[in-house]
């Protein structure tokens, strides 16, 4: 299933609800474009809701890292919300768990940006 991205704003935080796969050729480019679009508009608080993402390949992991570094370079924050078990395990395996701010409750995640 290809990646779909829905955007909403909660208390000044842009939440991207992602659904599907983040893989080379299926979702990586969409995610990159979405992040760069937000950063380009000056958004500083971005929360990626991965609750409906159950597959990320190495390319998708790289795209998450790129989102993180792109945001940091613009003094913006990208945080992750609602990891599925598969994605959680992948982030642990690749030590990216130590890189990202990972949240499992949306209200707490929104509050953490303040």
């Amino acid at each position, binding site marked *: 299933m290809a990646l779909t991205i829905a955007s909403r704003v909660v208390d000044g935080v842009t939440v991207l609800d992602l659904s599907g796969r983040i893989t080379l*050729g299926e979702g990586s480019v969409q995610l990159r474009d979405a992040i760069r679009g937000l950063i380009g508009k000056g958004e500083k608080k971005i929360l990626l809701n991965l609750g409906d993402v159950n597959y990320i*390949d*190495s390319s998708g992991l790289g795209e998450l890292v790129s989102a993180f570094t792109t945001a940091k370079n613009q003094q913006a924050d990208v945080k992750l919300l609602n990891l599925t078990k598969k994605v959680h395990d992948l982030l642990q*395996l*690749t030590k990216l768990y130590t890189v990202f701010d990972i949240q499992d409750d949306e209200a707490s995640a929104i509050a953490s940006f303040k």
Partner: protein
Amino acid sequence: MPVSEAQAGRLSLRLKSTMESVAEVEAAAEKLAADAGLNEDERFHVAMAAREAAVNAVLHGNEYDPAKQVLASFENNGKSLVISVADQGKGLTPETIPDPLAPENLLRGTGRGIFLIRAFMDEVHFRQLNPGTELTIVKHLSSTGDKA
């Protein structure tokens, strides 16, 4: 459509250097793992390892060159699942791939594919072809469930 050949439980595919081929390799690996009775996590590991091998072949090996092909084979020999993916590219020296877990590499956008393959499979073998690289990945049926 790929050229396929099924012989005594062994499936061989001759594929174009496209992302559609990556999806075909992933699907064939998923079916091989499912037919072998592996659980969901194990099927995920085998299919993802095969996908990463195919991405390496199409993207880094053949560099999407329409003149180059990817050869993939899938076999359950009763003791192991054996998947081979070969490209016709410049060749790969696995020793030169940086460790993606090293602190200086954690924020790199690439370089995690081979690492994931090694993490998910029991054996990983590289063979230099002329030209190209053959990557053979093996999942021991008796050891399934031992790895996270």
